[in-house]
């Protein structure tokens, strides 16, 4: 409704005098916020926050890779112990874990322990590893699965060549 068509009573209600001076300011001029010091202080603070986040991220990544290396070492010790005690089931279980861990590091996949053997092999293929490496990994993982879950009768003497084969494979997956 145009203001001029408002009822006279409503118009009279407008234009009322304020009896309180309110808040005084010295100027009406508009200050461009981009030129204010507080804005740039905020920017510097946020930029420093970004630098801190980058630093923390790098540190976290470093510590994560160190943790994985430690895990690998522990698994190698356990494999050797299983080999020493001729614990076939334990040996193959730990060997499977070790291969998955190495594939996880090489292919930058955090949860290779949750993948099935064919999925791990697919991961290797997608990371452009040679067919020889992929085939070897598939063969070893199948063997580990069979001996760990199928409860096959184990030839305890076969553990040593499997161990050597696995070590050569782990060296290739880098």
């Amino acid at each position, binding site marked *: 409704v*145009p203001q001029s068509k408002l009822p006279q009573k409503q118009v009279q209600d407008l234009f009322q005098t*304020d009896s309180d*001076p309110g808040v005084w300011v*010295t100027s*009406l001029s*508009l200050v461009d*916020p981009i030129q204010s010091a507080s804005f740039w202080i*905020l920017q510097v603070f946020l930029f420093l*926050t970004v630098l801190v*986040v980058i630093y923390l991220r790098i540190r976290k990544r470093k510590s994560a890779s160190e943790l994985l290396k430690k895990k690998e070492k522990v698994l190698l010790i356990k494999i050797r112990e299983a080999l020493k005690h001729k614990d076939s089931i334990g040996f193959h279980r730990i060997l499977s874990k070790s291969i998955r861990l190495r594939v996880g590091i090489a292919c930058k996949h955090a949860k290779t322990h949750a993948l099935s053997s064919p999925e791990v092999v697919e991961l290797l293929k997608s990371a452009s590893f040679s067919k020889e490496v992929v085939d070897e990994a598939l063969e070893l993982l199948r063997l580990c699965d069979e001996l760990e879950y199928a409860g096959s009768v184990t030839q305890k003497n076969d553990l040593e060549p499997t161990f050597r084969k696995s070590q050569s494979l782990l060296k290739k997956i880098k």
Partner: protein
Amino acid sequence: VKNFSILLLIFAFTQSWGVLICYGASKDQLFYDAVRAEATGDLQQAVETYTEIKEAHSAPLHANLANLFYKLNDYPLSVLHFRKALLLDPENREYKANLSLSLDKCGISQDSRNQNILSFSPTLYKYSLISLSILFWAGIILLIWFTRFPIKNKSFLFWVASWLILLILMYGFYNQQRNTSSMLQREVIAYQPLKDTNKPNDRISLRVFAGNASSANTSIPAGSSLFLDLGKNKQPRAHTSPDGEKWFLMRSLCGLNKGWVKEEEFRPVID
């Protein structure tokens, strides 16, 4: 010497406080005097008292002045002071309604009013820039923290796209505010002194060249917004005529109407 310097310090301290208190009190005192003058029906005296307040602004001060000019039938000045009041208190609905009525009285149509400028809030402008920068940096921080290569997670891409869209929208809003702010810096209200004509709806000529003898390109009602045309050096394009009058090149809101206007024929919104 020690006692003397202590006394000098105390004297300086009390004097500076005295000056500050007197300055604050004088502004308030003048304001109350003007309100009292208006209450007794002496509108002209009230206007004079308000205009004695120098280098200090408040929304009620400008709103009261605008009310007085409206009651004195000086509608362009009423528009000018409502605009100043709204700069300090952009959300005040009473000021907005009064401004609308003053613009009606000046004969300015609804189409000629720029709502972006009329509803501009300096606080919103400031916060739009701060929000934009926080959104930008927060996105960067989250991106650094959560990005894992190779990116396979589709929801991650969705969040990145959402962030970018939000950033563009926010920048668009900020840019609009910045443009409005820039226009406001150049905005003036066309004005014809009441004592010369005593007619409420005077028109201001936008002349072809800077001189009284020039014909007009067009004319606009007093109380309309005009915008100072800037030269290459980002300064208003001005010209001083041989008789010493200063002229400025102005454009209307839509930019179609332009012409030279005398210095006394306008009042800047932000001075």
